[in-house]
C-alpha cells in the first residue's frame, strides 16, 4: 500500500515529465519549423530574381510565371515577347528593364492579373484584341486586392488598363495611347469597374473613347493625370461615390470632366480646357449630388460647367475663363452654391432654361462683366449682378436666335434688359459680387490661357 503510494507519484511525475518533454520537443520543433518558415518568408523579400530575356533560361514571361513561387521577383529584359494572353495568377512582382514589349497579337487581353498583390512595371503592353466581346485590354485586373500597375506604356489596345472588382490597387505613371476611331466600338484608356480604394495617379492618356472611365468606383483618389484628345470624354464617372479628383488636366476632349449619377465627389485643382465645339463641355454634371468642385480652372470650353438634375453641390473658387457659356444650370438642379468663383471674359456667364429659376445661389463671385460700384470700399459691389444675359435666355428658348450673336441688335437688347428687366430671371443674381478678381486667380493670364 505504502509502496504503491510511493510509486504512484513517481509514475505520475515521470508521466508528467514525459508529457513535458513531448511538449518541449513539439515546441522546439514548432520553433524550428516556424523559424524555417520565417526565414523562407524573409528570403522571399530578397530572392534571387528570376530573369527573362531572349537568351535566358526563361525566354517567355509565361514560363517564368509558371515556375516562380508566389512572392518572387521576375525581371524581364528588353525584347519582344509574344505572350498571347499572359495570365499572372500568383502574387509576383514583374519588372521590365529597358522597355520589354509584350504583344498580344490582337487576341483577347495582353496581360491578365488574377492574383492579389501583383506588381507590374516597366513594360510596353500592346495590341490586345479589338473585338468588343469580353472587353479585351492591355492590362486586365480581375477580382484582386493590392495590385500596383506602375510606369508602363500601354499602346493600341481596345481598353488600356482595365480593373474590375478590385480593391487597394494603384495605377500610376502609365502612358496609355490608343487610336479609337468610333465611340460605339471604342474602349477607354483606364477603365475601373466596381472598384474600391484605388489610386490613379500621374497617368497620361490619349486617343481613346474616354480617357479615364470609372463606374461603381468608391473611396478612390484620381490625381495628377493628363487626359487629352479622346473621342468622347476626358474623365467619366458613373454611379460612384466618395472619390477625390485632384490636379488632373483634361483638355481637347468632347467633354472634360463628366460626373453622372454619383454622390459626394471632391473635384479640386483640375485644369479643364479647350473642350470646344458644338455640344462640348468642360464639366458635365448629370445627377451629381452633394459634391464639391473647388479651385478648378475652366478655360475655353463651349460650356464651362453644365448641371442637369444635380443638387446640393458646392462650386467654389473656380476660375471660368474665356468660355462660351461659363455655367449652364438647368432648372431641374437645386440647391447648388456658386461662391467665390471668378467669371472672366466668357461670352455668357450663366445660362438657364427657366425664367423662374430654381434655388441655386450665386454669392460673392467675381464677374468681369460687372459694371456696379462699391461706395464703402469693402470689396463687394453695392448693386447685384444678374449673370443671365437676355440674349442667353432667348437663345435657350429659341436656338435660332444665335444667328444674332455679336450683332449690335443683341447688344441693344441687353442694354434694354438691364434698364428694364423683363425676361431674365430676377432671382438669379449675385447680391454680393466681388469688385476685384480674387488674388488666387491671377496665376493665369489671358494670353497664356488662350494658347492652343
Amino acid at each position: 500500500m505504502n509502496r504503491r503510494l510511493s510509486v504512484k507519484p513517481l509514475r505520475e511525475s515521470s508521466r508528467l515529465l514525459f508529457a513535458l518533454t513531448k511538449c518541449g520537443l513539439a515546441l522546439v520543433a514548432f520553433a524550428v519549423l516556424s523559424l524555417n518558415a520565417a526565414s523562407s518568408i524573409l528570403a522571399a523579400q530578397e530572392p534571387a530574381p528570376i530573369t527573362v530575356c531572349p537568351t535566358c533560361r526563361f525566354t517567355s514571361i509565361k514560363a517564368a510565371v509558371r515556375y516562380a513561387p508566389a512572392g518572387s521577383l521576375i525581371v524581364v529584359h528588353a525584347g519582344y515577347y509574344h505572350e498571347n494572353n499572359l495570365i499572372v495568377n500568383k502574387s509576383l512582382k514583374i519588372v521590365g528593364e529597358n522597355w520589354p514589349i509584350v504583344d498580344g497579337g490582337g487576341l483577347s487581353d495582353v496581360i491578365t492579373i488574377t492574383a492579389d498583390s501583383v506588381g507590374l512595371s516597366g513594360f510596353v503592353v500592346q495590341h490586345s484584341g479589338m473585338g468588343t466581346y469580353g472587353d479585351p485590354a492591355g492590362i486586365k485586373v480581375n477580382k484582386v486586392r493590392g495590385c500596383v500597375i506602375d510606369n508602363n506604356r500601354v499602346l493600341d489596345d481596345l481598353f488600356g488598363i482595365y480593373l474590375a472588382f478590385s480593391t487597394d490597387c494603384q495605377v500610376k505613371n502609365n502612358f496609355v495611347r490608343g487610336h479609337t476611331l468610333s465611340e460605339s466600338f471604342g474602349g477607354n484608356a483606364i477603365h475601373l469597374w466596381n472598384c474600391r480604394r484605388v489610386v490613379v495617379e500621374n497617368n497620361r492618356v490619349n486617343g481613346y473613347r474616354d480617357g479615364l472611365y470609372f463606374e461603381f468606383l468608391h473611396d478612390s483618389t484620381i490625381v495628377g493625370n493628363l487626359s487629352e484628345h479622346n473621342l468622347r470624354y476626358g474623365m467619366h464617372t458613373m454611379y460612384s461615390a466618395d472619390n477625390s479628383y485632384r490636379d488632373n488636366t483634361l483638355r481637347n476632349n468632347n467633354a472634360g470632366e463628366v460626373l453622372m449619377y454619383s454622390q459626394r465627389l471632391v473635384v479640386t485643382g483640375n485644369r479643364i480646357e479647350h473642350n470646344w465645339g458644338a455640344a462640348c463641355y468642360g464639366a458635365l454634371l448629370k445627377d451629381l449630388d452633394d459634391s464639391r468642385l473647388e479651385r478648378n480652372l475652366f478655360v475655353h470650353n463651349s460650356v464651362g460647367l453644365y448641371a442637369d438634375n444635380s443638387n446640393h453641390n458646392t462650386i467654389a473658387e473656380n476660375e471660368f475663363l474665356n468660355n462660351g457659356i461659363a455655367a449652364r444650370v438647368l432648372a431641374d438642379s437645386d440647391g447648388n452654391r456658386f461662391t467665390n468663383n471668378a467669371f472672366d471674359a466668357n461670352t455668357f456667364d450663366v445660362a438657364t432654361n427657366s425664367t423662374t429659376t430654381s434655388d441655386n445661389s450665386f454669392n460673392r463671385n467675381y464677374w468681369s462683366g460687372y459694371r456696379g460700384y462699391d461706395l464703402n470700399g469693402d470689396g463687394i459691389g453695392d448693386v447685384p449682378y444678374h449673370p443671365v444675359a437676355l440674349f442667353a435666355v432667348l437663345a435657350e428658348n429659341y436656338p435660332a436666335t444665335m444667328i444674332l450673336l455679336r450683332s449690335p441688335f443683341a447688344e441693344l437688347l441687353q442694354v434694354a434688359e438691364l434698364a428694364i428687366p423683363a425676361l431674365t430671371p430676377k432671382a438669379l443674381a449675385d447680391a454680393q459680387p466681388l469688385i476685384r478678381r480674387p488674388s488666387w486667380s491671377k496665376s493665369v493670364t489671358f494670353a497664356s490661357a488662350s494658347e492652343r
Partner: protein
Amino acid sequence: MHSMLTVLRFNLHELARNRWLGAYALFFGAIGWALFYFGAAPDQAAASVLDLVVFLVPLVSLTVGVLCFYSARDYADLLLTQPISRRTVFAGQYLAAALSLAVPFAVGLGVPFLWYGSHERAMETLLLLLLAGLMLTLICVALAFLISVGTENRLGALGGALVVWLFFVVIYDGLLLVLIMAFPNYQLGRPLAGLVLLNPFDLARIVILLRLDIAALMGYTGAIFQQFFGATRGLVIALTALSLWTVLPILLGAIAYARRDF
C-alpha cells in the same frame, strides 16, 4: 473714262484735305494695336474688331457719304455745265468718296494685324474682315449717294441715311427675332440664310463669325449656316450678294442722278 478719272482725282484731292479721314484711319489703327497690346489672341481681336466693323463702318460710311455728296454739289454744278455725262460725274464722285473711306479703314486696321498677327489662320480671318469692311464701305457709300440723289437737302439725306442704318442694324434683326419667335417649332435654318442675304450688315457679320471658333455656340442653325456659308460656294454666294448690294444702289443712283433737275 479719262474724264471720270479727272473728276475722281479732283474730288480725292478735295477730300484728302479733310483731316478727320486721317483720324478714321488712326482710330482703327489704335483699336487694333490696343487689342493686341493688351494681350488678345488674334481670334479674339478679330471678334472684337468685327463688332466695330458691323456697327461703326456702316454708320461712318453712310453719313460721310452723304456729306461728301453735298459738299461736292457746287463743284458738280460747275462740272455739269461742261460736256461730261452725268453718269461720269456721279461715278467719279462716288469712287472718290468710297476710296477716301476705304483706304483709311484698310490701312488703319491692316497695319496692327500685320504687325502682330503672324498666324496663317489669323491672316485668313483678317483678310476676310478687311474684305467685309471694304464691301460694307462700298455698299454704304453707294446707299448714301442713292439717298442723297433722292432728297432735296443735306439734312433730309442725313436723316434718311440714319434711318437706313437703323433699319439694317436694329429693325431688320428685330424682325428676324420676331420671325424666329413666331415659328419656334420650325427649322428656320435655310429661310434665315436667305433672309440674311438681304441684309449686308448681317451677312458680313455672319460670314466672319462662322470662321471664328465662337461659331460653336451657334448650335443647329449655326451648323446649317456653316454648311451654307462655310464652303467656297457659300462664300461666293455671300460675296455675290454683297457685290449686288454695291452695284444696284450705284446703278439706281446714277439713273436718278441723270434724271435729276439741277
